[in-house]
């Protein structure tokens, strides 16, 4: 009996040494996402696999700077962002490595994938138009380009150009239509501002409710959040507007979307665990958790949006290579600066 006990201890010691050397039981994340739903996902993953998830949450650019400087010493396994542009930037700086995995590949929609195979989308969101139910006819709305039309003078609300979602939208316009058209568009939008850009996406919707403007450019999930608010007044504000997906016409490119995605760090010390986590986060289970807690759209085509989001109907996505959102970022900001979009 004693001998068996000792053998067991020796074995476990030996095994633990082995795991220490070859595969640890951890995975390290540098993440720009800091929603409550993420914590839930990591806890579920740990329960399922026994792998501990360690997280540092900060702004994407700062995390990129940290990754870049750490180089080979970096403890990071995965880099998570809420903007394909930042993933592209990380690829450009050679901070990520390609992921070839059939499970992940099968889990996600083809048109959301990175064409070069460096990063994996987990959710996506559309940057849409919301409009006042009282003061705007749905039939007057059509495309992003049309928002520069004079008929919207003093009616458009949008947040500051420092915001990454606006930068991504402008990058998509530059990528689709070129710098000159984008510049003119920006000029038109600035002329149509109901007020100087400020506040959050949610504040733009509140400003419509307050009558300070008639339509706003916001991310889809913020409307979901507003409609599930615990405060009655916020709920009312959410109900006073409707959602419109721009550029849905037959020959039009579809609404601008952006992904929240993961990249595998070039020097990932726990690669196997990292890939397991990627597999898990794109699985139907985890994707359902995302959809129902953060009102984003799932990257997994088998997973339907939450009920609130489903009510807005389906829409056509802009099929632009999402890496363009990073490639044209600098140009986008130049256009913002030059046209006075604060």
């Amino acid at each position: 009996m004693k001998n068996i006990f000792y053998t067991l201890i020796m074995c476990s010691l030996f095994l633990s040494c082995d795991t220490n050397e070859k595969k640890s039981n951890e995975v390290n994340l540098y993440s720009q996402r800091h929603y409550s739903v993420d914590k839930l996902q990591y806890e579920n993953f740990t329960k399922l696999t026994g792998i501990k998830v360690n997280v540092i949450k900060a702004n994407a650019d700062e995390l990129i700077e940290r990754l870049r400087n750490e180089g080979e010493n970096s403890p990071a396994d995965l880099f998570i962002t809420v903007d394909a542009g930042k993933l592209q930037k990380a690829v450009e700086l050679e901070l990520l490595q390609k992921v070839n995995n059939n499970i992940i590949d099968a889990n996600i929609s083809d048109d959301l994938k990175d064409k070069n195979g460096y990063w994996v989308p987990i959710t996506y969101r559309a940057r849409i138009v919301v409009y006042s139910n009282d003061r705007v006819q749905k039939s007057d709305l059509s495309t992003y380009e049309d928002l520069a039309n004079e008929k919207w003078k003093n009616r458009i609300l949008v947040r500051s150009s420092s915001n990454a979602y606006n930068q991504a939208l402008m990058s998509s316009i530059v990528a689709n239509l070129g710098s000159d058209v984008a510049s003119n568009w920006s000029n038109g939008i600035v002329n149509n501002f109901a007020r100087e850009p400020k506040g959050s996406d949610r504040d733009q919707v509140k400003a419509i409710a307050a009558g300070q403007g008639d339509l706003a450019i916001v991310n889809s999930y913020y409307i979901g959040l507003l409609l599930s608010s615990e405060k009655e007044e916020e709920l009312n504000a959410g109900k006073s507007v409707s959602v419109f997906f721009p550029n849905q016409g037959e020959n039009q490119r579809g609404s601008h979307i952006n992904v929240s995605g993961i990249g595998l760090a070039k020097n990932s010390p726990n690669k196997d665990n990292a890939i397991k986590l990627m597999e898990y986060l794109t699985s139907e289970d985890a994707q359902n958790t995302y959809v129902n807690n953060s009102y984003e759209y799932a990257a997994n085509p088998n997973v339907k949006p939450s009920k609130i989001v489903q009510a807005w109907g389906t829409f056509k996505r802009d099929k632009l290579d999402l890496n363009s959102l990073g490639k044209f970022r600098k140009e986008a900001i130049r256009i913002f600066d030059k046209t006075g979009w604060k």
Partner: protein
Amino acid sequence: MEIKNKIFYLENKRWIIGSILFAILLLLPIFTLLYKLIYVEGNSFKYLLENILLDYSFNTFYLILITAFFSLLFGIIPAWLVSIYKFPGRNFLDIVLYLPLAIPSYIMAFTYSDILSYTGPIQSFLRENFYNISIFFNQDYLQIEVLGIIMALALYPYIYTVSRVSFSLVGANYINVSKNLGLSSFKTFYKIILPLSRPAIFSGLFLVLMEVLNEYGAVKYFGVNTYTTGIFRAWFSMGDIGTAIQLSVILLLVVFSIFYIEKYYHSKTKFYYKTNSTIQSLGKLNRINKFLAISLCLIPFLFGFFIPLIFILNNVFLTFSSIDFKDLLQLTYNTISISSISSFLIILIALFFLFIEKISKTRVNYFISQSISMGYAIPGAVIGLGLIILFAFIDNFFSSFTFLGSFFILIYAYVIRFLAVGKSPIKSSLEKHPESYDDTGKNLGLGPLKLLQKIHLPINKFALITAFIVTFIDLMKELPITLILRPFNFDTLATQTYEFAVEEMIPLSSIYSLMIILIGSVLLLFLKNIINKQVNVS
């Protein structure tokens, strides 16, 4: 005297050399950034000048002006009333006027924008009950002027504290003389007390301005582009380090000019005054004036503390079911432990430099002491990046051990950024004590350590505690450095508050804000007690 100093200097050379080396260590991340400047392409300044510099400069100065004006108003008037007059509630007000310091300015900004917004309590109430009036209040409150007032509400206690002490110290003698000369109370205040207290008030105002220049969260939310938001935009969004560093240099120049303008001005008009020797009897007020005094003192407290607190409490009750108390406890523990360890180190280091400066009296040490305060003028994230670049380089030498991602780096960054905060109370306390203490000590053959231990630690005890509390509160509220340099899985109350707030879930962030405010308030009440002991404020 001269010779004695020289001998002392020669005997304790290693202390001075040690302090120089230590200072270099503290300035290293800043040097690293300047070194990076060499590799910057030249044309970014043209872009800056053509497109954004004017707008950024205007906003920065306008915001400074509004915040300065209102924080002086909120700080000086109550301090004057509380110091000189007797009225009901005076003792209570004297205590609670400090409390807004416990609320981080970004939380103040988010809270007020919610309170004032269309869906907030004021407008909702008016809409339901007085529709006609509500139309008038339906405004866009996200304006630079509103932001300035909100920042002033969060920051005026810096001015109140110093004014309160200074007004009490100037005290009775001067007031009696001026009254005998037939000056009215207002004239006494305006012509005598205010000029005599100007250096003190300015030191408070300087802290206010530094906070405004460094503010990021609130300023971005209000859509106001300042130098600091410009640095972030250039560096992070555009990857344009050149423009970012150029803006940082401009920011530093602004800070230095503010600092030196006052210094120059101050050197031209030197006052020598005797501090309060007789306990001053408080002036009496008639009924109307009593009411006026109470109202004037209540305004900053109500708007700077009470109203935001009630609103935050209401949010806490609304979200009570979703509060994770285990998590809250853990974050509170994290916050308290990292802030107290760092504050302790900061006080130790500040004391070291100030003490060397005092006993050595060399120009070098004066210069060192000034330059290590520079960190306070640099945005936290810039210091963070300086450290990342520096230590990534060092880590590449030691492949078995990495500094980045350790608490060491986090605390290192805190020290660089907040040394000035810890230094200022100790400095003013050290300056108050006569030189003769040192000389006597030196004559008795005490070395630097003994001099510190036997004389300076005991007599500066209260200043040290004050410095600890002030630094602790600032660290507890700190955000950008913690975000970027923290180790894995390390959250504080401030980072958690921010993460909810930035995702536009203000109600969920409330319990964490409340915790920050509670801890801060307790410490401030304690601090107030100490200040009362330290100077005999009547």
